[in-house]
């Protein structure tokens, strides 16, 4: 009875781990989509109205992209340069290391002329959209792999312990 309960708990833990890993991936997907939309909106507003960054960073862009813009704005208020503020906020994004490394250097281009800033924002949005599509393409396979790994690890633990 006790062994059965233990085995059940281990399997539940494996399933919870699977859920957490999948949720992490979904959160990254939501962040990619929301940030890409936010950067595209910023680019469009600069093109139409030349709105300065502080006003753009105050826009309501939802719970996924909002913390990023707020982090940049807070860093600027503390007197950091736009490049430093951008890099710092990118570091805190829930995205894989390689995506953050690709986004971080774009901050250096945000202090330039209109064309350069718009190109940087467009590129950032494109990178995020590409990341989103790639993750969507691999989603089914990764979900199966995650499920198989979590359950296998759980079962192995059950076999070893019981």
């Amino acid at each position, binding site marked *: 009875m006790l062994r059965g309960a233990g085995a059940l708990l281990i399997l539940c833990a494996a399933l919870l781990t699977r859920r957490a890993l999948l949720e992490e991936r979904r959160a990254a997907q939501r962040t990619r989509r929301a940030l890409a939309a936010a950067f595209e909106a910023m680019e469009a507003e*600069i093109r139409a109205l*030349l709105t300065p960054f502080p006003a753009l960073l105050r826009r309501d862009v939802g719970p996924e992209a909002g913390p990023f813009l707020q982090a940049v704005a807070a860093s600027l208020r503390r007197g950091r340069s736009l490049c430093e503020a951008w890099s710092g906020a990118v570091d805190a994004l829930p995205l894989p290391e390689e995506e953050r490394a690709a986004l971080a250097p774009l901050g250096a281009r945000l202090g330039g002329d209109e064309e350069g*800033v718009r190109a940087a924002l467009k590129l950032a949005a494109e990178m995020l959209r590409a990341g989103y599509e790639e993750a969507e393409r691999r989603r089914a396979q990764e979900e199966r792999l995650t499920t198989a790994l979590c359950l296998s690890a759980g079962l192995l633990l059950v076999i070893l312990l019981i």
Partner: protein
Amino acid sequence: MEQDRVRRFEQAAELLPPRLRRLAMETPDERKERAEELRLRVNAPLTVVTAEGEHPVAAAERDALVTRDDVERVVAGVTEYSRYASAESLRRGFLPVRGGFRLGVCGTVVLRDGAVCSLKDYSSLALRIVRERVGVGEAVAPELFDGEGRFRSTLILSPPGGGKTTLLRDLIRCLSDGGLRVAVVDERSELAVSVDGCPQTELGARTDVLDGCPKALGVPMVLRAMSPQVIAVDEIACGADVDTMCAAANCGVALLATIHARDVPELTRKPLWRALLAAEVFERAVVIAIEGGARRYRVEDVPCSGEPARS
């Protein structure tokens, strides 16, 4: 008044990077009161400009040395890290600053098709402390109306640094608060010092400001869009400005403008101004004279030179 001047200086110093700000704040109050500008030049000490000249902010010049990074930081802060949003102003060499200051910028000019396209590698900054003198025009304003209460088009005359813009700003306020619709074409953002569309100076309740627009383009725009009773501009300086003033006068609007000239006789000696006089656009002149360290305002009738008006 002195405290207000010291406060304005300290507000301007807030725009500097922390190291230079601290040095500027240590400037004696009597110098802060007289300060007209803060000057930053790469590899030179930060200086305070007064009527007497330029004074380094620190006794040891090395302490107040301005670096390229300092200059970049000031420009980044003033443009709110959005150089693209201030590109047009930067192209003309200045930036209006929140709080009613003005930042003159010098560096390397980027030319495209023979025209100034942008500025880069900033080397010098002049942070001008725009000082409003609310009430300075109140004694003069009533003299600019005729017996029927009609405002007569007026030129404000003085040599550079004589206080033309300060008087113009306050006359705009007087006319506007007195009930006239005044349109200001603020080509160099020096009258209203508009930031995000908000004038940072007092220009009266009935004043409409077209900011950063050349007079030749702006005057017809405000005529069409705002149907003003008075159009105010700073510094008529070239033939295009004279033509614009003549065209506006033909539309029945009164004008208020400044011009670099010591007095009315000097106006009649220079060909460009003679053309303006010949067009009979302006009826009155306020001549600013500095006597015994104080500014005196003298209102005179503007003569007609008899020369044909420019087309």
